[in-house]
C-alpha cells in the first residue's frame, strides 16, 4: 500500500476502509449481454440502467421481461451487499446504475463510490474523498441518490458528486480518478460560482444543524487545527460560509460529453440568515472537467427574470438565496436539452423578504447543453410559500395527443399536479390556467394573486381543504369535522400560512396545508413511464397538515415556521428579556401540523389519492389508482362513530416505481405498506393496476429500484436500511424458474 500524506491528520480512516476489505480482485470489464449488437435507446443500452432514472429520459423503464407475472412470486434474494463496512448513512436513498457489466453505487454519509459485481454483489473497487470540515458541515450529509456514467468506446467514467461539493471522474474499471479531469480527477464545484475560496474553520465537532445553524466560518489569519478539540482550520478551503452553505444531494446527468450538475442548499425550514447562495446549473466537459457554462437560477441583475425579484437579485441581497436544483434531472440527448426541476427560494413558508414571482424558483427549465442557454421554462408555483420545491426529475416521453405526435416532458410535483409540456417549445399540452388564489394575512407577505392550475391531468393528491372534503357519515360527524376544519383557513389550494398569534383579520392562526411539504410527489417516489404506451405511473402520498407562522427571536426573518433558534451556534444574539416560548413545544415541523382527526379518524374523506396513480398521457386521463401496498382499516373506539362502518384508507408512504416490458414493479418506501405486514416488492398489471405478484423482501425499499440483465439473468436491485445496516438487495428468479 502506498501512501503520500501531506496532511497532518492520521491515516485512520483509510486504513479502516482498506482493512475492512479483504482480498484483491482482478478487475476485468465483463462484456455486457445487453451490449451485443444493440443500439442505444434514450441514451441507454437496452437491458442496462445507465442513468438514475434508467435512461436519459428518466423513464425508469426496462424492456426486459424475464421477470414477469408468471414468475414474479418466485423471486429470491440473489445477494445482499451491506455498506456498513464503509460507514454509516441516514437512510439509504441511492438507486444504482448498471453499465457494461458493472454495477455502480454510492454509499455512506461520505458518499463513497463503489463498483460491485452484478452477479455476486462483491465489491470490486471503492473511492472516497476526505473533505475535512467541508464534509463535517455539509448541508446534505448522506449517500446521495446515485452517480452518472459515460463512455467513449473503451474509455468509461463514473461521475460522482460529493456532499462537500466536489465532482470526481473515476475510471469505471478501476475506480482510479481520471488524471486529465480537473485536478487529480477532482473538480471543486465551489469554484466557478463567482465567489472567492477562503480557508475554512469550525468551532465545534458537530454537523450543521438543520438549515444554517452551527455553520463553518472563514478561518482567521494563521489559524491552525487543534487536534485536542478538533476545531480550528484544517486546511480546507471553500466559499466563505458567511455567504451561505451549498451542497449536493443528487447525481449529475450526462448529455453527450457534457456533465450537467447543480447544487442543493440548506434546508429552508427555519434558516437564521436572510441570504444564501443562489442555485446554479453548470455544464462541464467530461474529458477535462472544464466548466463550459453556468446558468443562474436566480437571474443576476439584467438577466431574464431578474425583474421577478422586486428587491433585486444582487448576490447578498436580503431574501435572495436557494432556488436550488437539488433533485435529479432528465434530458433528451437528440434535442440536446436537459430538463431541470428547480427548488424554491429561501425560507419555506414566508416570502416577505423576497417580493415578486422569484424566477426560476419552482420552475422546470429546459437548457441547451451546448450553450447553457435557456430554451424555455415554466414556473409552476409563483412566489412559493409552501415549500413546493420541484422535487424530482421530470419524465420524457412521446405520445399522440388529438391525433398529433407530441414530444412531451411531464413534471410531477409536491403540489399534487403533473404539468405536461411540449419538450421542444415548453408549450403546455393541455391548458394551464392562471387562477386567482387566496391572499396572505401575514404582515409583509404579498402572495401571488394567481397560480397556474393544470386543466389536465387531474391531481394525484388531495388539494386544499373544503367543507365538501370532510367526513360526513352522520350529521354529528360532519359537524365535529367542521369544527376542527374551521380552526384553520380553508380553501381549494395554495392557502397561505397564517400568523400563529391570531393577529390576522380573520382571526385564524393557521391554514390547512394539503398537500404538505412532503408532497404529493417527493424525491423518494416520483413517476415511471411506459414509453410503448404513453402511460405514466405516479407514486405519491396525500396528507394534511397546517401552517402557522411566528417570529423566531434569534433569526433574521420576520416570520418563519415556529422555531426558536436562540442559543444555537450562528443564531442572532438572544434578545433582552427573552423567555422560551412554551407554546412552541416541539416547534419546527410540528408547528406545521395540527390535530386533524377525531378519535384517530381523519376529518378528510378517504379518496383515491396518494399510492400509485396511472395516467394515459395520450389523453391526459387518469386510468386507475391503487394504494401503496394495500388499504388500512379505519378503527376507532370513539363513540361518535358508533354504528358507522368506516371505509379503509390507503397506506402511507411513497411508492417507488419502475416499469418493465409487462409489469409495473414497486416497493412501498420507508413508511409505506400496511403496518405489521412484512415488507414486500409488488408487481401490478400495467393496464389495470391489478396486483399480479408480491414477494417478501428483507426490509422496505428506501429508494427507487432498478433492473438489468447480466450474464443472461435479470436482476432487480434496490436499497434498504439506514445507519450501518444499509444494503443493496438483488432479486432474481432462481435458475430453474428463469428457464422459459
Amino acid at each position, binding site marked *: 500500500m502506498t501512501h503520500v500524506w501531506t496532511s497532518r491528520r492520521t491515516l485512520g480512516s483509510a486504513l479502516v476502509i482498506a482493512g475492512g476489505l479483504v482480498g484483491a480482485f482482478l478487475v476485468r470489464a465483463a462484456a455486457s449481454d445487453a451490449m451485443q449488437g444493440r443500439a442505444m435507446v434514450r441514451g441507454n443500452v437496452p437491458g442496462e440502467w445507465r442513468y438514475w432514472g434508467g435512461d436519459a429520459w428518466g423513464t425508469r423503464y426496462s424492456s426486459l421481461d424475464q421477470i414477469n407475472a408468471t414468475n414474479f412470486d418466485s423471486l429470491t434474494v440473489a445477494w445482499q451487499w451491506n455498506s456498513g463496512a464503509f460507514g454509516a448513512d441516514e437512510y439509504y436513498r441511492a438507486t444504482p446504475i448498471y453499465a457494461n457489466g458493472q454495477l455502480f453505487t454510492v454509499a455512506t454519509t461520505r458518499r463513497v463510490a463503489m463498483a460491485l459485481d452484478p452477479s455476486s454483489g462483491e465489491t470490486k473497487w471503492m473511492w472516497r474523498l476526505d473533505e475535512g470540515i467541508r464534509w463535517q458541515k455539509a448541508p446534505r450529509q448522506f449517500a446521495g441518490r446515485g452517480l452518472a456514467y459515460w463512455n467513449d468506446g473503451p474509455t468509461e467514467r463514473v461521475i460522482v458528486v460529493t456532499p462537500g461539493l466536489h465532482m470526481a471522474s473515476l475510471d469505471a474499471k478501476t475506480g482510479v480518478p481520471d488524471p486529465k479531469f480537473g485536478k487529480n480527477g477532482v473538480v471543486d464545484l465551489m469554484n466557478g460560482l463567482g465567489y472567492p475560496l477562503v480557508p475554512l474553520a469550525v468551532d465545534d465537532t458537530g454537523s450543521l444543524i438543520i438549515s444554517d445553524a452551527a455553520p463553518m466560518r472563514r478561518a482567521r489569519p494563521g489559524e491552525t487545527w487543534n487536534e485536542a478539540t478538533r476545531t480550528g482550520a484544517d486546511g480546507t478551503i471553500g466559499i466563505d460560509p458567511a455567504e451561505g452553505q451549498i451542497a449536493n444531494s443528487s447525481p449529475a446527468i450526462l448529455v453527450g460529453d457534457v456533465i450537467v450538475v447543480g447544487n442543493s442548499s440548506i434546508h429552508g425550514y427555519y434558516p437564521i440568515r436572510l441570504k444564501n447562495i443562489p442555485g446554479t446549473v453548470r455544464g462541464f466537459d467530461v474529458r477535462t472537467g472544464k466548466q463550459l457554462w453556468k446558468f443562474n437560477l436566480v437571474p443576476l441583475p439584467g438577466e431574464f427574470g431578474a425583474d421577478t425579484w422586486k428587491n433585486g437579485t444582487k448576490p447578498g441581497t436580503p431574501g435572495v438565496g436557494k432556488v436550488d436544483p437539488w433533485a435529479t434531472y432528465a434530458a433528451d440527448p437528440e434535442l440536446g436539452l436537459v430538463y431541470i426541476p428547480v427548488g424554491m427560494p429561501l425560507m419555506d413558508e414566508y416570502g416577505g423578504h423576497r417580493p415578486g414571482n422569484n424566477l426560476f424558483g419552482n420552475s422546470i427549465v429546459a437548457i441547451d447543453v451546448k450553450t447553457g442557454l435557456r430554451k424555455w421554462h415554466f414556473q409552476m408555483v409563483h412566489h412559493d410559500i409552501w415549500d413546493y420545491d420541484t422535487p424530482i426529475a421530470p419524465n420524457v416521453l412521446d405520445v399522440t395527443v388529438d391525433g398529433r405526435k407530441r414530444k412531451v416532458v411531464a413534471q410531477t410535483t409536491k403540489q399534487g399536479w403533473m404539468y405536461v409540456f411540449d419538450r421542444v417549445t415548453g408549450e403546455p399540452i393541455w391548458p394551464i390556467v392562471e387562477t386567482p388564489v387566496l391572499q396572505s394575512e401575514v404582515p409583509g407577505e404579498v402572495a401571488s394573486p394567481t397560480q397556474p392550475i393544470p386543466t389536465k391531468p387531474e391531481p394525484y393528491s388531495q388539494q386544499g381543504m373544503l367543507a365538501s372534503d370532510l367526513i360526513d357519515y352522520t350529521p354529528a360527524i360532519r359537524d365535529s369535522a367542521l369544527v376542527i376544519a374551521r380552526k384553520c383557513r380553508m380553501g381549494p389550494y395554495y392557502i397561505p400560512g397564517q400568523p400563529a398569534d391570531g393577529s390576522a383579520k380573520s382571526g385564524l392562526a393557521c391554514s390547512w396545508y394539503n398537500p404538505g411539504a412532503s408532497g404529493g410527489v417527493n424525491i423518494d417516489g416520483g413517476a415511471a413511464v411506459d414509453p410503448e404506451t404513453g402511460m405514466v405511473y405516479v407514486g405519491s402520498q396525500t396528507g394534511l397538515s397546517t401552517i402557522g407562522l411566528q417570529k423566531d427571536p434569534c433569526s433574521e426573518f420576520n416570520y418563519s415556521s415556529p422555531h426558536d433558534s436562540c442559543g444555537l451556534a450562528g443564531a442572532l444574539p438572544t434578545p433582552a428579556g427573552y423567555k422560551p416560548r412554551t407554546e412552541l*413545544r416541539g416547534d419546527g*415541523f410540528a408547528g406545521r401540523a395540527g390535530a386533524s382527526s377525531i378519535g384517530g379518524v381523519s376529518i378528510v374523506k378517504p379518496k383515491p389519492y396518494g399510492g400509485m396513480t396511472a395516467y394515459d398521457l395520450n389523453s391526459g386521463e387518469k386510468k386507475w389508482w391503487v394504494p401503496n401496498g394495500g388499504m388500512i382499516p379505519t378503527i376507532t373506539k370513539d363513540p361518535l362513530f358508533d354504528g358507522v362502518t368506516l371505509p379503509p384508507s390507503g397506506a402511507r408512504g411513497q411508492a417507488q416505481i419502475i416499469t418493465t416490458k409487462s409489469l409495473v414493479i414497486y416497493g412501498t418506501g420507508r413508511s409505506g405498506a400496511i403496518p405489521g405486514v412484512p415488507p414486500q416488492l409488488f408487481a401490478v398489471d400495467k393496464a389495470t393496476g391489478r396486483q399480479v405478484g408480491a414477494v417478501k423482501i428483507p426490509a422496505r425499499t428506501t429508494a427507487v429500484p432498478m433492473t438489468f440483465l447480466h450474464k443472461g439473468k435479470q436482476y432487480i436491485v434496490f436499497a434498504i436500511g439506514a445507519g450501518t445496516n444499509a444494503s443493496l438487495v438483488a432479486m432474481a428468479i432462481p435458475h430453474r424458474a428463469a428457464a422459459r
Partner: protein
Amino acid sequence: MAALGCMYVVPSTRAWAQDTPPDSVRSTLAGVYSAAQSARGKDVFTESCLECHTTADHSGQSFQNSWIGHMLSELMQYLRDKMPKSNPGSLTPEQYSEVTAFILSLNGLPAGEVDLPTDSLQLRNIRIEIAKATTDTVQARTPHEAGLKQFVWGHSAPFTIARTLP
C-alpha cells in the same frame, strides 16, 4: 398545546395529557425507557421522520429550547397529534412511544429496564430533564479526517493514493 386541545369541542379530543402533574414526579434522568425500545424507535424515526428531521434537530439546544421542564406526556401527545406532518396520528401507539424513547436517547438520557408505556397519561409524572454534562456532548460526532485526500481501493491490489487539493 393544552389550550389548543381544549378548544376542540369534539368527543375524541377530551383525553389530553397535560393536566396538572401528579405529586410524585420522576425525571427522564432516571431511566424511563428501555434500550430495546429506543432501538425500535430509531427504525421508526428512519422510516417516518428522517425525511424532514435530522437527529441534530432533536438534540442539544434545539431540543432544550422546546422541551426542558415539560412533562414527557406532552412530548408524546404532541408527536401523536402532529406527526408525521403529512399524516398526523398515523403511527401505532407503540411506534409513538418508541420514537419518544429514541428522542430521549438522542439527548443522552439513560435507558432503564422497562419500556415507556404507550398511554401518554402514564407519562404525566415524568419531567423532561437533561444533565448539563450530557447536553454539551450530544452534538458530537465521530471525529473526521481532515484534508482533501482521495482513497481508492481495488484494481489489482488494494492501494491508496492521497494528496491535498488543490
